[in-house]
């Protein structure tokens, strides 16, 4: 694997400058904060309530911005130029993910503070959040690579938002419900289950299972995004 910190940093800085000057896309970072303020004021203290703005951040900010960043590169023919430069696939994908990773981390911290969520086991929860962030970044890359423009990417991301942000709400249906049996394996649901296990101060094994499931999702999503990216280096 070829990694150059200088190249990753250069792509990150370029994305940061572009993102900070693109108000149409950068505006979305305010939505989870607004939601967190509303949920914080509601007085509810269930894990589901805490994690709604968190899962929203993942789909509406992490996946959406990542998809837009990639789609815009395709729309303007700059992605091919990047691919033709000496930057490796790892350099490009890491460079293009750092910005969204940092934004997500800041938003998650702010959202958790605003909803008043203080987990019992911070390192384990952070591990779960990092694995989730990686998964949603990879989902954003996949959506961005599948589409030709920012407009198309904004539409393509909708199923991701619906499935991965709102489906975990089905957990409230109860363990016997058929929808629950499917939905419980989604990364968003696993994150909620992890938070519940942390809350119950469960055993290490119980904490590892949701992290392992989320990791599998992330690895599969990364694999698809890399394969798709390699395909895009050539015309079909």
């Amino acid at each position, binding site marked *: 694997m*070829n990694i*150059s910190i*200088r*190249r990753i*940093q*250069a*792509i990150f*800085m*370029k994305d940061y*400058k*572009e993102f900070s*000057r*693109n108000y149409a896309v950068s505006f979305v970072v305010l939505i989870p904060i607004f939601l967190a303020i509303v949920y914080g004021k509601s007085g509810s203290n269930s894990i589901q309530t805490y994690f709604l703005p968190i899962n929203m951040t993942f789909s509406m900010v992490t996946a959406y911005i990542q998809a837009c960043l990639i789609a815009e590169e395709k729309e*303007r*023919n*700059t992605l*091919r*130029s*990047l*691919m*033709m*430069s*000496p*930057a*490796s696939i790892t350099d490009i994908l890491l460079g293009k993910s750092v910005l969204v990773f940092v934004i997500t981390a800041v938003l998650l911290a702010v959202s958790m503070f605003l909803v008043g969520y203080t987990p019992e086991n911070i390192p384990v929860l952070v591990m779960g959040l990092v694995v989730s962030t990686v998964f949603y970044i990879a989902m954003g890359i996949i959506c961005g690579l599948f589409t030709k423009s920012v407009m198309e990417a904004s539409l393509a991301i909708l199923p991701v938002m619906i499935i991965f942000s709102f489906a975990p709400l089905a957990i409230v249906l109860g363990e016997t419900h058929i929808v629950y049996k499917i939905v419980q394996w989604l990364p968003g649901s696993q994150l909620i289950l992890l938070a519940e296990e942390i809350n119950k101060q469960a055993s290490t094994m119980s904490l590892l299972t949701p992290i392992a499931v989320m990791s599998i999702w992330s690895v599969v999503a990364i694999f698809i995004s890399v394969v798709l990216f390699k395909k895009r*280096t*050539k*015309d079909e």
Partner: protein
Amino acid sequence: MSKIIDVQNLQMKFGKEEALKDVSFTVEKGEIFGFLGPSGSGKTTTIKILTAQLTHSSGKASVFQQNAADMNQMENKQKIGILTDNSGLYGRLSIEENLLLYCNLYELPKSAMDEALQFVNLQNERKKKVNNLSKGMTQRVILARTIMHKPKLLFLDEPTSALDPVNTKHIYKGLRKLNELGTTIFLTTHDMSEAETLCDRVAFLHKGEIREIGDPAMLKKKYSDHSFTVELTDGEKHVLLNGQEDAQRLFNWMSTQQVERINTNEPSLGDIFVQLTGSDL
């Protein structure tokens, strides 16, 4: 001289449509090679195959004695520069910010960017946002980015198509300088005067087939009817051919001081293209 590009019996099909038919040519080290043809003749397809952006259907294409498909390997990307219709820039960034990105991607010193800006005559415009540039200026920024790492082989697809005559001249001067420093240039154009000015050898591509290949001066000689036009002081023009009869006529005009001007009737590259293909560029 060694072959930098070697293409043999190259064929490219898009579905049933044949974009390239049995194309063969070589480009020697240090050459400026012109690939001439109208839109849709297969020029860009050839560049894309040679730069590993497209996989050819059959035949052989090698660059630096390696399969053209390997041109996407990192060590090869350092050796080539590409300017095609799908080379884009970041509109919200300035010229300098765009070039600085590539300066870092190629791990070059900042002075490489200054040199490239000077090459395209944009050193005083570096702070301008790309979104506010004219088409010609945008083309010059892309060209600066393409040559910044001083590639050994430069692929230029219609490099001066959006430029005004002053900047075109400036770019020609720069390209010749780059070539003198050892850069081999593969240039596609439909501008015959550009080809005549820059190229050591040209190939005429028409509907995916190479119709002729050679040195422009040699081609002009080959396709010339060896006639010349004599313009007399009274404004009359006469086309003469080599031979006793026309030599006597010319001698008579010259001895009576009637000759105003003599021009050879050498065809232009455009004329040769029309002659070979029956269609204009």
